[in-house]
């Protein structure tokens, strides 16, 4: 049976068909739907959201050592978090099949950087496969498990936004039920202390040499011969772009395995062509390999290191053909950047922080959008957890007075991911920071995943809930306050009081995400006739509130969900809620 599947759903299907038993991940765009799909569609597979990628990866590692095929999925920056066990697992091997799916985000649709994860494959000496569409997502996932067991190595499956988030046709097959492989105590293989690791390093180098040889003959890498003079070496989504752009005007060396690369195959292919182009988004990974192998190729001198490619761009660069004509209105088109949704609980928090003129160390989540005008209160965004630890560093650098104007903001899920360790650092090293946990009862940005603070598992089974108050108190924070960010007056008082305290404090800004089904805002808000046009409500940056063109303000009922924050902000009581 054929089905239209998202690339991520196809990876999930591949894992299911390959007999995978354990999946542990932390959500991150564009990888999230792999694990969600497993939770939703394949009850045979145990799956979970872990608190962070390192934990998730280690769960998968343990499962593989324990004899079950296992998987962990993450976005590119999630692999940074997971990198520690990855490098050592290369030495240990796998036992049962072990696959790490990592999804890069060229063009940064939803990321803070544009790193190229292929470098990890080379650095950790772990084989990496890269599919080009949903059919290959499924097929390569299954091959990854075979390679993992045959060569006793973890295997990376590299995805990118356009592969992960495009739907294409996939032929469905049955699940292959697999017995658990035996677990046998093997100190030399599983205990990586220097004496054992030295021996395992030899194993790694031998394995990689064999895999490099396999790459030359693997069906994952194929030549498409159109009798052309131009040769194109490409992989992943860029292969599809090249194919669309150049059709049969080029021959292709389509690489499904991007590490290790097939030296002999590349040399043979290059020898048959007048000109060889390496077309790859982001870094010159394949190109550098070719050059080091003495193969003359054209790459980044004509293709950019930045962002996503398109077929048009390739057609222009390789064939010199112009892009098709198009029509454009000669007018300035205002941008439409993402914004906090109408009803977003973070809006109240940022309104207050802006009003108080504080320095705000931000973090990764929907609330990164607190940096966008008019709220524009976030000062820094680096990575998951850095709001807490970097603020501690700022306070140590600039002293007590500065710290009284400094807060950290971090979501509930992000706090569990890596905020708690920063808080421990503050307590241990006599900091006096104020940390605001934006507790909206869910992992928001990635599309509503449960986390240890929500009380539900990935499959919505009730479970123990990490209590943020108890957690913060238990690491030594004595001042922990819960406040509703929509009660603006009280919230402001709380923030002021905690900033004054000469000890660490945590404010839990508690109000659920407005998009949750359990949140039932009704009606909408309306500006009264008695409006004094002070426009204080405009400072909320609510997408439903805008100027009416006559010096006043209006509320768009199709955008307003009746959350009532503007009612609270109006000093003259001129905004009313209507049913």
């Amino acid at each position, binding site marked *: 049976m054929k089905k*239209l599947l*998202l690339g991520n759903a196809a990876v999930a299907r591949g894992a299911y068909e390959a007999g995978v038993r354990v999946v542990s991940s932390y959500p991150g*765009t*564009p990888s*999230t*739907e792999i694990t969600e799909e497993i939770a939703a569609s394949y009850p045979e597979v145990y799956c979970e959201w872990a608190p962070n990628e390192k934990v998730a990866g280690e769960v998968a590692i343990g499962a593989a050592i324990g004899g079950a095929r296992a998987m962990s999925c993450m976005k590119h920056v999630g692999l940074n978090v997971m990198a520690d066990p990855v490098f050592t697992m290369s030495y240990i091997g796998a036992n049962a099949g072990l696959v790490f799916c990592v999804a890069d985000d060229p063009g940064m*649709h*939803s990321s803070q950087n544009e790193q190229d994860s292929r470098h990890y494959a080379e650095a950790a000496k772990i084989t990496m496969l890269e599919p080009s*569409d949903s059919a290959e997502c499924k097929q390569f996932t299954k091959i990854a498990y075979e390679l993992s067991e045959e060569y006793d190595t973890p295997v990376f499956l590299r995805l990118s936004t*356009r592969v992960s*988030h*495009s*739907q*294409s*046709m996939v032929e469905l097959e049955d699940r292959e039920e697999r017995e658990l492989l035996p677990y046998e105590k093997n100190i030399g293989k599983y205990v990586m202390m220097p004496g054992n690791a030295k021996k395992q390093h030899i194993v790694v180098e031998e394995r990689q040499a064999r895999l490099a040889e396999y790459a030359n003959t693997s069906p994952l890498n194929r030549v498409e011969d159109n009798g052309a003079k131009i040769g194109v070496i490409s992989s992943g*989504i860029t292969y*599809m*772009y090249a*194919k*669309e*752009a150049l059709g049969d005007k080029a021959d292709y060396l389509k690489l499904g395995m991007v590490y290790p690369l097939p030296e002999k195959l590349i040399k043979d292919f290059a020898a048959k062509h007048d000109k060889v182009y390496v077309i790859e988004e982001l870094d010159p990974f394949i190109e550098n390999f070719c050059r080091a192998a003495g193969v003359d190729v054209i790459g980044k001198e004509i293709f950019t290191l930045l962002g996503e490619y*398109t*077929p*048009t761009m390739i057609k222009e660069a390789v064939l010199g053909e112009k*892009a*098709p*004509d*198009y*029509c*454009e*209105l000669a*007018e*300035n*088109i*205002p*941008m*439409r*950047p*993402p*914004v*906090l*949704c109408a009803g977003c609980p973070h809006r109240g928090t940022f309104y207050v922080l802006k009003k108080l003129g504080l320095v705000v160390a931000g973090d990764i989540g*929907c609330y*990164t*959008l607190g940096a*966008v*005008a*008019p709220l524009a209160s976030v000062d820094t965004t680096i990575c998951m957890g850095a709001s807490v630890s970097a603020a501690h560093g700022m306070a140590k650098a600039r002293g007590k007075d500065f710290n009284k104007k400094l807060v950290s903001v971090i979501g509930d899920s992000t706090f569990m991911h890596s905020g708690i360790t920063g808080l421990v650092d503050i307590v241990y090293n006599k900091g006096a920071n104020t940390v605001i946990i934006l507790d909206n009862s869910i992992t928001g*940005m*990635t*599309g509503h995943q449960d986390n240890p603070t929500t009380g539900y598992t990935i499959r919505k089974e009730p479970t123990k809930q990490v209590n943020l108050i108890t957690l913060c108190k238990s690491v030594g924070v004595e001042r922990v306050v819960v406040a509703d960010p929509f009660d603006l007056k009280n919230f402001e008082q709380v923030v002021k009081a905690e900033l004054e305290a000469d000890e660490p404090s945590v404010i839990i800004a508690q109000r659920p995400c407005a998009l949750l089904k359990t949140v039932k805002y009704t009606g909408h808000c309306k500006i009264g006739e008695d409006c004094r046009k002070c426009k204080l409500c*405009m400072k909320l*940056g609510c*997408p439903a*509130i*805008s*100027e009416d063109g006559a010096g006043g303000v209006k509320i*768009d009922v*199709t*955008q307003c969900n009746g959350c009532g924050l503007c009612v609270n902000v109006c000093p003259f009581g001129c905004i009313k809620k209507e049913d």
Partner: protein
Amino acid sequence: MTKNIMIVGVGGQGTLLASRILGNTVINEGYDVKVSEVHGMSQRGGSVVTYVKYGDAVYSPIIDRGEADIILAFEQLEAMRALPYLKKGGKMIANNQKINPMPVIIGAAEYPENILDKIAKEVDLTAVDALSLAEQAGNFKAVNVVLIGVMAKSTDIPYENWIETIKTTVPPKFLDVNLKAFDLGYNL
């Protein structure tokens, strides 16, 4: 020959469901199909773009400037932004709804005037008051299915096939509203 359809709008307007209805309908016609979606941060009230491409064999899932046969725009400003993607002789279907983006709200930019009139002078445009039709169907959120209805009329895929997909794609609770919304668009 590949048919390229682009769906553009504002995050939260339901463009994703529209692209899935379209994708699943053309797949049943026996075509090769690719649907490229946007998830994550861009969905938070930003400009969203999805591509649906179908034909004998589809390679790239994305559509570039001057390549779209049809653009289905959920909002006026997004119609204007997407215009360069329309192929010469292509068709634009645009909802006349206006949603102010943040730069306009804070006064850093102005929402252009008479967008649809200007577009109509350049290309084949069908302007639709999809919001009113959705409200007529019983829920203003059904704007997406109204627009799919309008678009369905300009393809050669039979009416019943669209209905079949809607039945399998939308939650049963909202089926009646959506079927009504589709008809209002289709019979425009």
